[in-house]
């Protein structure tokens, strides 16, 4: 039974206050009929006796108090799913926008999902090869992980995200792989880039796209990532696919959240973001993972642009506390024309220890990556010193480290946008670079591995 009300009392920004409502439930989906007959969606934010506070997913322009009709649907926001959603493009609320045929739903799923029982989770241990050395070699991604890209305005995070989506695969397996891609508040050009990218690489048939553009209603963005993750959960756990979810750009999502919070006059937390930002972000990011006994998995790569490249801004900060590491882009490398400009030192993949090594990638992976890390860190430090004091002030050792870090950026980090390096290639570049350093400095790699991987090549 659908109840319709004409009792709107207040409209403030995206919020609508309704009176005299019976039987409204928290988080219930509503349809808002505009005076011109068009219909938008919204949901219940708060209900007190017969007073209901709604948030409208559409822009509220054109609404008036007298004629606006609100219908309560008795259910929460749902996404119709079936296997045919692959290859389709939807808007931010899950409505087809690619002029394709109607989706005949196999079932409808609540977009909010339920928390996975921590006991039912399986630990991510399968290495995903992205073909990008700076990620595979030093900050490897594993299946079921959530690894955000922290970027900034003007950095090529979208190209990197697209490259990851194109090249990702699990070593030695030919399983069903799907990409679920959600945009929130990005520009038409950026979205177009992705859609073309998917088309030209013939990757669209294994992708589902949810597009919310910069000029789409901001509040719709609250639902978009949840739509995408609901689709991902369906593909992963019911269709047994390995799903990679790309969410871009989470900053705009958080801003939409802040907009609602401000309109509700809630007590703001840091920088005006609501106090529940952490919990809210967790309800998105934590939908990544693997479940014991399930074949499929969900790996998440949220992209977020840090305002003013500030890592301590609440959005990257809270994200970093929920996700398992972060890939940070470097403006300095970008300026020097290095693509992909990945800042490997502050980047981190927390799950790498269990995803690499013998039987997963190669026995020397862990030691080698530690060695490269510390050598590069030292080289960069020495380089900074040289800037202040001049090259002459460096010790012989430090000069070698500087040489190493230059070579590291040129040969290890830098690679082509369509260059897909295997993990073996990545590791051998790493060993090759270590030859620059005196052997006594290689303290983090095992003796026999030096012999096997570094010197074996030299003698021949």
């Amino acid at each position, binding site marked *: 039974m659908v109840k319709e009300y004409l009792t709107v009392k207040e409209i403030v920004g995206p919020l609508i206050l309704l009176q005299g409502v019976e039987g409204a439930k928290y988080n219930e989906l509503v349809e808002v009929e505009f005076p011109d007959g068009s219909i938008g969606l919204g949901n219940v934010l708060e209900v007190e006796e017969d007073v209901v506070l709604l948030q409208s997913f559409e822009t509220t322009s054109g609404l008036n108090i007298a004629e606006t009709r609100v219908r309560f649907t008795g259910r929460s926001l749902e996404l119709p799913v079936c296997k045919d959603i692959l290859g389709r493009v939807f808007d931010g609320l899950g409505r087809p926008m690619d002029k394709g045929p109607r989706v005949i739903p196999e079932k409808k799923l609540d977009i909010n999902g339920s928390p996975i029982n921590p*006991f039912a989770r399986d630990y991510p241990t399968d290495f995903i090869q992205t073909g990008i050395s700076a990620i595979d070699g030093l900050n490897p991604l594993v299946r079921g992980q959530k690894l955000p890209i922290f970027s900034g305005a003007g950095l090529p995070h979208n190209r990197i995200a697209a490259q990851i989506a194109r090249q990702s695969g699990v070593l030695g397996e030919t399983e069903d792989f799907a990409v679920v891609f959600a945009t929130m508040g990005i520009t038409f050009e950026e979205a177009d880039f992705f859609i073309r990218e998917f088309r030209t690489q013939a990757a669209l048939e294994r992708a589902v796209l949810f597009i919310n553009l910069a000029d789409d209603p901001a509040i719709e963005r609250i639902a978009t990532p949840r739509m995408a993750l609901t689709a991902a959960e369906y593909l992963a756990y019911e269709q047994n696919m390995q799903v990679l979810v790309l969410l871009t750009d989470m900053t705009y999502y958080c801003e939409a959240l802040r907009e609602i919070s401000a309109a509700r006059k809630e*007590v703001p937390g840091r920088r005006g973001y609501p106090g529940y930002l952490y919990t809210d972000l967790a309800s998105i990011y934590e939908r990544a993972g693997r479940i014991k006994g399930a074949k499929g998995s969900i790996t998440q790569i949220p992209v977020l642009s840090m305002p003013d490249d500030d890592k301590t801004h609440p959005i990257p900060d809270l994200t970093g506390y929920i996700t398992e590491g972060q890939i940070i882009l470097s403006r300095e490398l970008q300026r020097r024309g290095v693509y992909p400009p990945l800042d490997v030192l502050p980047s*981190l993949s927390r799950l790498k220890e269990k995803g690499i090594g013998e039987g997963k990638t190669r026995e020397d992976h862990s030691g080698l990556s530690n060695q490269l890390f*510390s050598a590069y860190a030292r080289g960069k430090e020495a380089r900074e010193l040289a800037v202040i004091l001049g090259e002459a002030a460096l010790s012989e050792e430090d000069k070698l480290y500087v040489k190493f870090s230059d070579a590291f950026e040129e040969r290890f980090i830098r690679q082509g946008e369509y260059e897909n390096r295997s993990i073996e290639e990545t590791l051998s570049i790493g060993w090759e670079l270590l030859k620059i350093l005196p052997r006594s400095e290689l303290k983090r790699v095992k003796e026999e591995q030096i012999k096997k991987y570094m010197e074996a090549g030299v003698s021949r």
Partner: protein
Amino acid sequence: MKEGYVVKVAGPLVVASGLPDPKMYDLVKVGEDRLMGEIIELRGDRASIQVYEETSGIGPGDVVISTGEPLSVELGPGLLTSIYDGVQRPLDTIMDKYGNYITRGVEEPGLSRTRKWNFRALVKVGDAVEPGDVLGTVPETKVITHRIMVPAGVEGKITHIREGEFTVEDTIAVVDSGGGDVQVSMMQKWPVRKARLYVEKRPPVEPLVTGQRIVDTFFPIAKGGTACVPGPFGSGKTVLQHAIAKWANSQIVIFVGCGERGNEMTDVLQEFPELTDPYSGEPLMLRTVLIANTSNMPVAAREASVYTGITLAEYYRDMGYDVTLQADSTSRWAEALREISGRLEEMPGEEGYPAYLGTRLAAFYERSGRVVCLGKDRREGSICSIGSVSPPGGDLSEPVTQATLRVVKVFWALEDRLAFARHFPAISWMNSYSLYLDQTEEYWGDEVDATYAALREEAMSILQREAELQEIVRLIGVEALSDQERLLMETAKSLREDFLQQNAFDDADAFTSLRKQFLLLRLIMRFHAVANQELEKGRGVEELLDLPIQEEIARAKFMPEDQLGGFDELEEELVRQLTARVEVPQARIHEPSTAVETAAEGA
């Protein structure tokens, strides 16, 4: 059954009206799904309820049932090896019964009602007992004997006692309390927000041995102490906490994952059962309780989870055990407080946190400590609380960190700078502190070696001096240093790399006994001392710093615990190499690998 109805829903906050005789912190069930909640505010007839589960679909008019009791946990055999959510629902049973997701309104008792335990009595009919007296024991796991205690408020003569296999609800004893017979079972209930009783609190005296060199040697924590670990993300905080849970020498480990990552919790849940307890050789889980409330699980249950954890800790403390409680992270707990406070429309304090944040944090940490337990035998037990904080942006001046630092005694300052350089554990030796040094120095002196305190102090001063010298090197270059200073830099580097750095994933390195810590530190300091003497004899620093012994010192941390005699040999070798006049041709010094081989052949 006491019923009321819902009048308002705003996220996890539900306001109910018409509840007969509602009390603060009473447990209630909301709606048809019977969602669990707790009354946190009363205004006239209206009760504000924080609901521990997602409230979608709840609306005005829905039924609210009050249980008339505060949120309590069940205490008895079966706690160990369990994995609970924030309100003591067993996650494993829930998965078996309800599937992979936590559906709403799930109800499962914390302790199994069907499992039988072998109870052996320690009292006999006619004995007078008081609260805390041990009635008997149950072998709860292979390593822990569970002591069944007389519950609070029960005192009198035993009129009946049984032995054999019982469930936690069966009566095992009857106590004539003067006012009538009281039936005692193996299970007690205790409200989580109330500290369990004890006779008196005592100051901590003994260090908690964690096997982590930087902790035990430089910044020790005492049994019954409190510590705080802040960490900007990516600084290895969790690895450190896991290492302490694995290796600390307390009998019971309670690990509260409070608002943290699901995968991280899975790591704990999967790894703990496979870990071997270094002290008993049995699985570590046999003395562990895990509480997992991940960030996407309801925020109100997160708020309750630390209380659930500390109440379980107190229960084992009351049996006379040393308990380590780890809460990861208390910042998430504070955020849960803030979120709920915001929904209650309370006036916010700093950064939106409620004004009572400091009081609540202090009250939580104050529940740890070394106490004389209830019961006639006056046994002692302790709880050591280690809470992590996650300061936003690594900014330690934020309210949660500041409120925590006011109450804890140990501060392990994790720094991302160290983590970037792959220095683990990334505890800063410059910014950390421990206020338990005096107590532990005495213990080290008695148990390990009398020279410990002096050695530690000397090592610490070298590290501090290094920081100053580094500034000079940065500005003027290494040439500006005297030979003595260069040696000091080298020793400090050795201290950092060969002593402070510890690999949690390496079998030989993950745990270091106090004895080995001492020997290793002495070895490094011996190098410094002997080399210094040689410098005084007029030798140049270059010839002292390129010796194969340095590499051997670097490997000393991997020396097995049962071959600690090796340290004596190393010290002899060290003296031999440092004092030997160099006869080797110059070229060989620059080939350390050959030098190692020569040394190995010689030994």
